């Protein structure tokens, strides 16, 4: 049993990590009243940014490059939505298209039209001394690459920050009632810009984690809908940090199921597993019913 369970749980955490980064980033934007459908674009920008930067100056630069690329693309969205006050859904969709197109064109431009797979070394999992010896939990939770440990710190820190700090209050006030927030001396536009800067960074970090801690290369469209799943995760997590983290784990499990079924040797078409996380999203969203927990200003430009 443990021989199946441990790889499954390990894969769950590994797959959940980038999803959680993206979803936590999206959650912060949405708490400020901005729905960011360009997240998918920020993720793929992060993937390419990480590959290029790590090729130039190593893995640390790789993560920085991914984060920077995600923020850069998100800045386009922020300009349109915060400054020009255009429709959020359409601007977000366009930014996703821009990200997917630009990365594809740049990748072929930089590395040839053949798109020959260009590898980058991935960061190795680190076993935390002591903790990684605990049966089942040790190897799953505490034998992971660095970004996962970053996530373990980020979740409680973000939850505390949103709930307990003045800046967190400003964020929530902007998302619930921008006019009242403005009357109280908060500048909603600045809050939203700051929130989107964080969202872009997290989208980029999601992409960097995919490339530098998992796949080790770039391919066109490798974000594979993670940005949209992350948006669904925020809804399922009912706009709370811990809820979002939990829903990310659930989806990590849904993706990891394919490894489990492959190991079990079930003769089912693999497309069934490819489609599974997306079907699960629809089912869970339907079960959730209603959007009562959504920030009141969400989607209003």
């Amino acid at each position: 049993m443990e021989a199946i369970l441990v790889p499954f749980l390990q894969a769950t955490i590994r797959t959940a990590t980038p999803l959680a980064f993206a979803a936590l980033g999206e959650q912060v934007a949405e708490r400020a009243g901005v729905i960011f459908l360009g997240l998918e674009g920020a993720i793929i920008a992060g993937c390419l940014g990480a590959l290029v930067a790590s090729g130039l100056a190593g893995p640390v630069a790789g993560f920085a490059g991914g984060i920077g690329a995600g923020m850069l693309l998100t800045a386009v969205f922020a300009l349109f939505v915060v400054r020009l006050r255009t429709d959020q859904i359409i601007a977000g969709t366009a930014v996703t298209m821009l990200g997917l197109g630009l990365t594809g064109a740049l990748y072929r431009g930089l590395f040839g039209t053949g798109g020959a797979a260009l590898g980058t070394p991935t960061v190795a999992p680190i076993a935390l001394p002591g903790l990684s010896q605990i049966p089942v939990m040790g190897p799953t939770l505490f034998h992971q690459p660095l970004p996962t440990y970053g996530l373990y710190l980020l979740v409680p820190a973000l939850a505390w920050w949103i709930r307990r700090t003045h800046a967190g209050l400003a964020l929530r006030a902007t998302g619930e009632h921008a006019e009242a927030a403005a009357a109280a001396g908060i500048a909603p536009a600045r809050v939203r810009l700051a929130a989107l800067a964080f969202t872009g960074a997290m989208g980029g970090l999601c992409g960097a984690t995919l490339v530098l801690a998992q796949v080790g290369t770039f391919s066109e469209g490798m974000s594979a809908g993670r940005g949209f799943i992350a948006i669904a995760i925020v809804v399922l997590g009912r706009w709370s940090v811990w809820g979002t983290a939990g829903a990310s784990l659930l989806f990590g499990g849904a993706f990891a199921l394919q490894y489990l079924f492959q190991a079990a040797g079930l003769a089912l078409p693999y497309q069934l597993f490819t489609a599974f996380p997306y079907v699960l999203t629809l089912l869970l969203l339907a079960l959730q019913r209603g959007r009562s927990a959504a920030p009141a200003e969400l989607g209003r430009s």
Partner: protein
Amino acid sequence: MTDALLALLDGAFGSSYAILSATLVRATPLLLLGLAVTLAFRAGVLNIGAEGQLIVGAIAASAVALGLDALPRPVLVAAMAVAGAAAGASWAGIAAVLRRRFGVLEVISTIMLNFIALALVGWMVRGPLQEPTHVYPQSPTFASQAHWPFLIPGQRLHLGFALGIGLAIGAWAWLAFTASGLRVRLVGAGARAAASAGGIDVARTTFGMFLLSGALAGLAGASEVGGVTFALYEGLSPGYGYTAIAVALLARLDPRWVIASAILFGALEAGAAAMQRDAGVPSVVVQVFVALTVLVVLAATQLGAESRARAAIARAEEA
């Protein structure tokens, strides 16, 4: 740079073949999908799922083309169109039901359905609909009765384009001159006012428009397999469903202008293919151009609305 641009223009408009067998052929799915997006957006339905609806339409039309190839050609072609439209409407129907009964945002659900449709076609061309040798991930080539008729001898322009033009004009006339078209416009302009002042059943109207939008996208899928590829493939659409959003927005959601806008983007797709072939510039730059078009239209619309509002305020203050 100049080479690339010349290759693009030549590939799109350089000859009657370029226009009638490349540009307008590529414009055909964009026309049908652009209409699908236009009608949905006009009713306030954010259908981002035209891509998935196209794919299931193509699957259904292919199943009909392969399974009923004993039918006479006109009947078979019509059956393919109906099957494609029905499949597209059903696929959109999932998202429509999720929105109406469960309050699920259609933006998320239609995108999820796009990914599920991709998995579905991937399985179809390796499973139930795979060609008999089981080597290639594609369906067998359709019998000639299932080929949609070409409009001009010697050119690849097919029935789907004529259908698209007819439907665009029909959609415009319907929105402009009929009571039900007026209801759709009112719902799109402001759902709450339409319900309270106009007594309109908003949920029912948007539900119907969602299905209609899906049917048009499914028809585009049928038209692609029936008029262009004559077989079902996985990579049937290079993201036509997403380009269609730009087509619809550039046309300012006016079905008549969707025709011109679809031809423009069709020329771009055709030209980009030639550009990749002749000048080695990757055709994904089209996607960048599409995204930039959407952003520019968005900014121009917004700035235009703001300057009109400022002018109105200035006039009011003078008076």
